[in-house]
């Protein structure tokens, strides 16, 4: 079967009778099996997906199908799907079965998307290489000695390797954009609060967003349009109107674009990534857009701010995993305290424990002001500076990552080295603005390069239109 890169291609073939949903699902199931060594899926819903495909083929025959008929989607192992297992890549949720379906997922199903399986990720979405999963690392299909990025590594590889058309992941500090860059696909992190998080396993609640991994801007826009908007089950979700993103993907006016000098001048950035972004800058200038370098002296403070706040929030969010209500309980639970301690000690992986420890430390009475409050203050400064920048420019462009996909095991010895992989992606989460990573060529080893675009709050419509323009030129 031919490889599809957008729902439109599929819809056209469905209409012409060249393909059916059943054939599509069979094709994806074959690819999943064929590429099982990549370790992208934790569970495949083969029979269920085939049944669903037949049901949707029937709807298509009657002309009653939803807007996502023909789209086969994978879910990162952090999204609830009723009566399906879920464990956030962690041993501590061994055997957990979702009691309800996440709002975002339900909206996809209501539009006739087919859910094909549950995808590997870093434990509780904590990681930048997918090496922190209790189910082993995911391999990058461009080079299987390299990581796919993280934490939505399985979700990115599934799309990269053609195991599904799109994946739904989560982005707390770059977990959708960074793996998208490493795997040569599109990764969108919407504005904070754009998509309901009901049914998303909580990591750092003032940062967490559901995100989209896909191969076309049109699909990304349509999925965003369908998942976004108010929800009775999430009091933090935005009531801002959801525009028909997929209908407005062209730009007509001249734009003001900024690039951050520090992200390009930095010695740590790979030459081919720098050249890739400079080429885009030249293109934009040649098209008559105004492109200017701006300084962001706060760049070095982004990651420290991010790590203080996310460890604090995650130590609180992960206190619910105690062996009482669900998942793993240590066999050595002879007293209540032992049950808590042994369950958590045996159930969590190293990186998760490290973040819980750091978070508990920065929230403890003696250090709260020095670390936690300090980081909240710096967060305000970063937000204000970013707001000022986005009041002057339509977009900010920057590399998604300082390097292309690194080797498996390359950064596992030192957590700080690993944290630097998120250097360019955390700003959007610290501030809450939307950001996207789009493919921008390959490096000298044939590894994909990502280009990141950020824009102002709820500016997804222009962000997607601009991304499409950049990808087509």
């Amino acid at each position, binding site marked *: 079967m031919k490889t599809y890169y957008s729902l439109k291609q599929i819809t056209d073939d469905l209409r012409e009778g060249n393909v059916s949903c059943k054939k599509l699902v069979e094709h994806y199931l074959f690819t999943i099996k064929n590429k099982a060594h990549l370790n992208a899926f934790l569970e495949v819903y083969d029979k269920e997906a085939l049944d669903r495909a037949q049901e949707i083929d029937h709807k298509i025959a009657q002309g009653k199908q939803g807007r996502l008929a023909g789209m086969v989607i994978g879910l990162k192992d952090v999204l609830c799907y009723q009566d399906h297992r879920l464990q956030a890549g962690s041993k501590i949720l061994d*055997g957990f*079965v979702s*009691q*309800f379906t996440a709002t975002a997922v339900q909206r996809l199903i209501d539009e006739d998307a087919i859910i094909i399986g549950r995808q590997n990720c870093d434990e509780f979405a904590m990681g930048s290489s997918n090496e922190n999963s209790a189910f082993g690392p995911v391999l990058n299909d461009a080079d299987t000695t390299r990581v796919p990025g993280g934490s939505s590594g399985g979700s990115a590889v599934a799309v990269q390797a053609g195991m599904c058309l799109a994946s739904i992941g989560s982005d707390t500090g770059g977990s959708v954009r960074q793996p998208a860059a490493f795997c040569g696909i599109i990764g969108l992190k919407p504005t904070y*609060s754009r998509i309901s998080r009901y049914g998303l396993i909580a990591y750092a609640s*003032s*940062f967490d967003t559901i995100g989209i991994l896909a191969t076309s801007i049109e699909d990304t826009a349509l999925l965003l349009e369908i998942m976004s908007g108010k929800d009775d089950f999430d*009091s*933090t*979700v*935005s009531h801002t109107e959801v525009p028909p993103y997929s209908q407005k993907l062209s730009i007509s006016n001249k734009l003001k674009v900024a690039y951050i000098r520090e992200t390009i001048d930095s010695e740590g950035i790979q030459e081919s990534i720098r050249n890739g972004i400079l080429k885009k800058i030249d293109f934009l200038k040649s098209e008559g857009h105004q492109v200017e370098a701006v300084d962001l002296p706060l760049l*070095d*403070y982004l990651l*420290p*701010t991010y*790590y*203080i706040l996310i460890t604090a929030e995650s*130590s609180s969010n992960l*206190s619910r995993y*105690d*062996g*009482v*209500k*669900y*998942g*793993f*309980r240590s066999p050595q*639970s002879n*007293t*209540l*305290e*032992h*049950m*808590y*301690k042994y369950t*958590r*000690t045996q159930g*969590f992986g190293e990186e998760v*424990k*490290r973040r*819980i*420890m*750091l978070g*508990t*430390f920065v929230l*403890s009475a003696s*250090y709260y002001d*020095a670390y936690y*409050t*300090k*980081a*909240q*203050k*710096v967060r*305000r*400064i970063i*937000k204000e500076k970013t707001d000022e920048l986005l009041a002057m420019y339509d977009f900010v462009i920057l590399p998604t990552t300082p390097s292309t996909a690194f080797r498996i095991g390359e950064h596992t010895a030192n*957590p*700080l080295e690993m944290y630097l992989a998120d250097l360019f992606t955390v700003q959007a989460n610290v501030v*809450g603005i939307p950001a996207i990573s789009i493919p921008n060529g390959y490096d000298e080893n044939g590894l994909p390069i990502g280009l990141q675009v950020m824009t102002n709050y709820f500016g997804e419509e222009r962000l997607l239109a601009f991304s499409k323009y950049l990808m087509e030129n």
Partner: protein
Amino acid sequence: MQADRETLRKIAHLARLEFNPDSEKEMLDSVNEILTWVEKLNEIDTTHVEPLTHMSEEVNVMREDIAKPPLPHDRALLNAPKKDADYFRVPKVIE
């Protein structure tokens, strides 16, 4: 600020985690390395800055107080490692 073993043990207890002597040393070293790194924030003057505590622009959303079906009892207990017909079971707390 450098955390010592005693602080680490205190924090571990608060987080209901436990470390054996080997993993304790490793955790202490990496926690201290990260703490030193985040202290970079002290270079920024935040004297007159209010902490940013809410990221959403949304204000309270009110609705009618109508009872809706909650998660059914059996579903809530579905994943419990130990349960009876009505409750989650844990090791005995009161002698």
